[in-house]
């Protein structure tokens, strides 16, 4: 199963945890499953997120595939100047 790590700001909304073992074919479905399990995560995801899959950063990554053994970090949506 893929390892999912949320930012600390989502701990409260995710029932006190930020690390999950979960399988999802892609980012969109991963976020959907997390939101289904923890509805309070939805508004936090809706603020916009970037995703790091196996240490590769994606800013708009809904359809990025997630492998069974992937390490996935949910991060704030990147901005710049």
């Amino acid at each position, binding site marked *: 199963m893929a390892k999912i790590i949320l930012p600390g700001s989502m701990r409260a*909304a995710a029932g006190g945890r930020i690390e999950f073992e979960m399988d999802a074919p892609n980012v969109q479905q991963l976020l959907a499953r997390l939101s289904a399990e923890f509805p309070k995560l939805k508004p936090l995801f809706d603020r916009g997120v970037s995703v790091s899959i196996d240490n590769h*950063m994606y800013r708009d990554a809904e359809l990025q595939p997630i492998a069974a053994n992937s390490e996935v970090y949910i991060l704030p949506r990147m901005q710049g100047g």
Partner: protein
Amino acid sequence: MPLDPQADVKSRKFKVVGTRPLRPDGIDKVTGRAKFGADATAPGMLIGRVLRSPHAHARIRKIDSSKAEKLSGVKAVITATDFVDGADLDKGTRDVLVNVMARGKALYEGHAVAAVAAINATVAKKALSLIKVDYEVLPHVTDVDESMKPGAPVLHDDLYTGGVEPKLKKASNVAFRHEFGHGDIEKGFKEADVIVERSYKTEATHQGYIEPHACLASVGPDGQGELWVCTQGHFMVRNTCAALLGMDVSKLRVTASEIGGGFGGKTTVFIEPVALALSRKANRPVKVVMNREEVFKATGPTSSTSIDVKIGAKRDGRITAAWSELRYQGGAFPGSPVEFGAMTAFACYDLENVKTIGYDVVCNRPKQAAYRAPGAPMAAFAVESTVEELAHKIGMNSMDLRLKNAAKEGTKSSYGPVYPPIGIRATLEAAKNHPHYKAPLGPNTGRGVACGFWFNFGGQTCTSLNINIDGTVALAVGTPDIGGSRASMCLMAAEELGIPYDKVRTIVADTSSLGYNDVTDGSRTTFASGLATINAARDAVKKLCERAAKTWGIPADAVVWEDGQAKPAGANAGNFPPLSLAELAANAANTGGPIAGHYEINADGAGVSFATHMVDAEVDKETGKVEIKRYTVCQDAGKAIHPSYVEGQYQGGAAQGIGWALNEEYIYGKDGRLQNAGFLDYRIPVCSDLPMIDTVILEIPNPGHPYGVRGVGETSIVPPMAAIANAVSAGAGVRMTQLPMSPPKVLKAINGKKAGKQH
């Protein structure tokens, strides 16, 4: 996305990439011919002016514009009701709508409340004076720590702190609580032999681009609109304005003018929707140009901050725990870059136990906009100052302490993911081996060193490359050129096509000529538009080879592209004289018509970038005045496409950092009004303030780019304030914990030390 393996990047011999040709827009810019935002005119053009709130916080009871409307020469007066109601907009866009024109409440001094379009500036000015606004003045707050206190005036009664559960009972000015890190902080501090803990404050600074915001809008009765504007992202302007005005995106064409500096400040809209709304109402072209006072009061400076840092280490200098709480005010709306401050604070180091907490705070100041590596420089100032003190406390050279703890390939970053190959160590070693590091210091002069990190990113990008009949090339990109990027694009296209640099002409195409392009920000242009340009060229090369194959009557895969020519792949492919790009172009009509290459991508894989800065600062101990005597920047560029403009980014970032460190600050009065809204008292560095700025370009290729490019624009502003604070603290003999380090602050610290108040 096609990736060249890094080995290829390293071994690749470039023909034109890495050289320093003259920029294509050079002559226009040295002769005054280049057209910037305010340089456009149109037949029947009106002048638009904006009425702004004189109060930091006030309820708008009533706006009476009847007298202004009756004034001869006035063609339109607008207020918030001339835009969409915002019900269907996402929160972020709705905030922009409310920031562009106040609704119900004025949230900061300078907040737009109405606007007029008139036949000339004199009439427009008179008209503004005839608009009567009935304000109920409310209590205000402009300091980040004050704004967080219970009992502070609350800006938005529907704002409840995000990132905390259970939901708080009361609305507050704290928009969000962020948290990052890994390991066990408590355990780490228990293991520490030495712990340093300090609090820091930084004042808000402005990007200070020399060109004020300017645009020329024209909307006809058919709803078709044209907008000429200086912006970092004309596609963003189009989409946002269409949303705020309820227009079809297809009906609005936005053309990016030459842009007189942005640094993040031109990544959103202010006057653009106003100009369009005025033009729509007046049915005439309307030009709106901000004056400098408006730029300071009503655009997007960066956050002022309040930061606590605690770092523990073993006697040998190994850091065992690093903690920081960062509080950033982002003006009147949520969205300060505190999350990036919290993510980047310790990003330079390989840490077992690290935790950062960030609070996004609103107060009665203009809505912050991105400023070069948003959020990172303030965090680096606090962390790198603390690291310096830690080294002194341990009795260790701070450069060695940084090297001992520096992140490397495989390090789990403080914000989560593990690093690919990175350059922090290389930049530290380059600084340590630089003659500057060993040069003797003058009296009352301190030397400071600091590191900095920025993510960089890629984003949505679309380019088009057209082969002209004479074999020259027209390249259309969608990312405004804010620092010479057209030269870099020409270089990359020429490299791929195997033709001379001056055979390629790059233009920034308007929003109707290309697919969507993200804003020129996040140091993305040379990376992402470069990536798209290289691949568009490769697409064209593929088609050129097909045309040659067709001409020779051999299979396309039997043709190779070398030195700007199509050649048979080998002896058995047949013996044909090479066909040059020019020959293939001349005959294109007979081989299938126009030849063009295209590429669209949402680019990822922008490599992170690190820098180490070193500075000597002389302190006049009797007046507290600081002079920068020497400055050296060492930064990883991945691959420098046009080294002169890479150096320029390094030097420019350092110079802005010097201003931020020494004299730049937003100064508010008790009345919540900005007291220094001009270049006289908002003191950006002048030519005589600075020394030459030495640069060292390191090239640790980014595997995410065909040539190994990393963004360079932003990282260069991350280390300066910390490096200068370390230098000034050494020169003054007292630790400076507040920015700017203006003469009165430095003298006060020196006197405080004398009086034994601080050590």
